[in-house]
């Protein structure tokens, strides 16, 4: 498994590498901007169907942020929304096959995590002053200072690696699975290819399974029958190198590793950001 491919290196400042990640994140940015501009146009007091959906999404996001951070922090919603959408689309763009997931690069997730940390520190400094912020590390007792420092440093690192690991790990697993299935299909076909009667038997068994599955309306039997038939046909034709087992199975796993994991990680990342920044921005009760 490689990291992001470097397409081209701009010979400036000692070489600026244009990687897959940069391209993906650029594409995501452009898509999000265009979508945002298109969705935010022609707003009416009596909303159209599109506007109802957009408003639902926006107010849901505002509701989420207000629940987590409090009403006074509602102005953070655009940033959280942008982060969430960038993260989700950055993960999903890997499913197109053309681009590599932008979030499968530690540079991306670490940048976002550091942005969150800097925002937290900025909010703390704004709320308590620079000295007050530094003093915050010595609480509850002075002995805790190293722990507090470590946790402050660990926070962005953990966020970055969590997101990166989930998306990149999903990619690794998917490619591993492809390799494994290719190997398995090659081995199976090689095994059966040695004798023609065995492959005929396999083909006959496949047809029988398929017919019985069609009559009794049993999905597993149908699938198994098709697999058996494909195995028999490929063996008889002498095509040993076709990785036919790769059809279908990776799609189911991709549903988890790409769709579910991408959505959940985007949610987790933005929720953690709201929580951290929200903690740094307490309600202005004395004001």
């Amino acid at each position: 498994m490689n990291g992001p491919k470097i397409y081209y290196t701009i010979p400036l400042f000692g070489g600026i590498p244009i990687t897959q990640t940069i391209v993906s994140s650029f594409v995501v940015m452009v898509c999000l901007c265009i979508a945002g501009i298109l969705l935010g146009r022609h707003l009416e007091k009596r909303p159209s169907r599109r506007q109802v959906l957009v408003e639902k999404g926006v107010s849901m996001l505002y509701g989420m942020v207000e629940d987590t951070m409090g009403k006074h922090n509602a102005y953070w919603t655009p940033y959280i929304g942008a982060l969430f959408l960038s993260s989700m689309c950055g993960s999903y763009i890997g499913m197109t096959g053309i681009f590599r997931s932008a979030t499968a690069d530690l540079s991306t997730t670490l940048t976002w995590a550091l942005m969150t940390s800097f925002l937290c520190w900025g909010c703390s400094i704004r709320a308590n002053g620079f000295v007050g912020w530094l003093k915050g590390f010595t609480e509850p007792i002075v002995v805790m200072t190293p722990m507090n420092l470590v946790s402050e440093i660990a926070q962005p690192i953990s966020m970055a690696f969590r997101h990166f690991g989930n998306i990149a790990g999903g990619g690794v697993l998917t490619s591993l699975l492809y390799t494994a299935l290719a190997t398995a299909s090659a081995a199976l076909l090689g095994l059966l290819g040695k004798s023609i009667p065995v492959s005929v038997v396999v083909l006959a068994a496949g047809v029988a399974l398929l017919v019985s599955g069609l009559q009794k309306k049993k999905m597993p039997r149908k699938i198994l029958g098709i697999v058996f038939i494909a195995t028999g046909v490929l063996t008889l034709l002498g095509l040993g190198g076709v990785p036919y087992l790769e059809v279908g199975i990776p799609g189911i796993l991709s549903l988890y590793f790409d769709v579910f994991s991408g959505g959940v990680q985007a949610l987790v990342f933005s929720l953690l950001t709201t929580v951290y920044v929200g903690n740094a921005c307490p309600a202005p009760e004395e004001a």
Partner: protein
Amino acid sequence: MTGFESFVGVNPWTALFTFCNMLITFAVLKHFLFKPVKQMIDDRQQEIDTMYADAAQAKQKAAALEEEYQEHLKSIKAEQDAMLRDATIRAQKREEEILDAARSEAQAIRTAAEAEMAQERKKAVNDLKNEIGGIAVEIASKVVEREINKSDHQALIDEFIRNVGDAS
């Protein structure tokens, strides 16, 4: 030059680009999507609130007006009653006044008539007296058949008539 970056590694240029992209995405989404949509939602909410408040106010006003009219109607009725009563009382008073006036006038007329009658009677008595006196003198002169002292006889006759008048 093509090649691959390490799987787990941080490229500062990628980080910088990601940072810029994030900022641009944030700015664009905020300006073109979140702000106008939120504004629209808030505006609508405010409009709805205003409408509800207006409706409540109008309802309250209508109720107040109704009460006012009811009060007004009641007062008009009371006024009417008072006017009627007043008119009745006045009419009764006027009736009495008119009756009184008529009665007193009648009384006056009667008194005047009585006085006139009394005077007439007195006058008639006097006339009768004079006439009787004349007749008596004439009769007496015829009886005596001579001219007597007229004044003496007149005195005698007057005395006689007075006596007669007193007796009658």
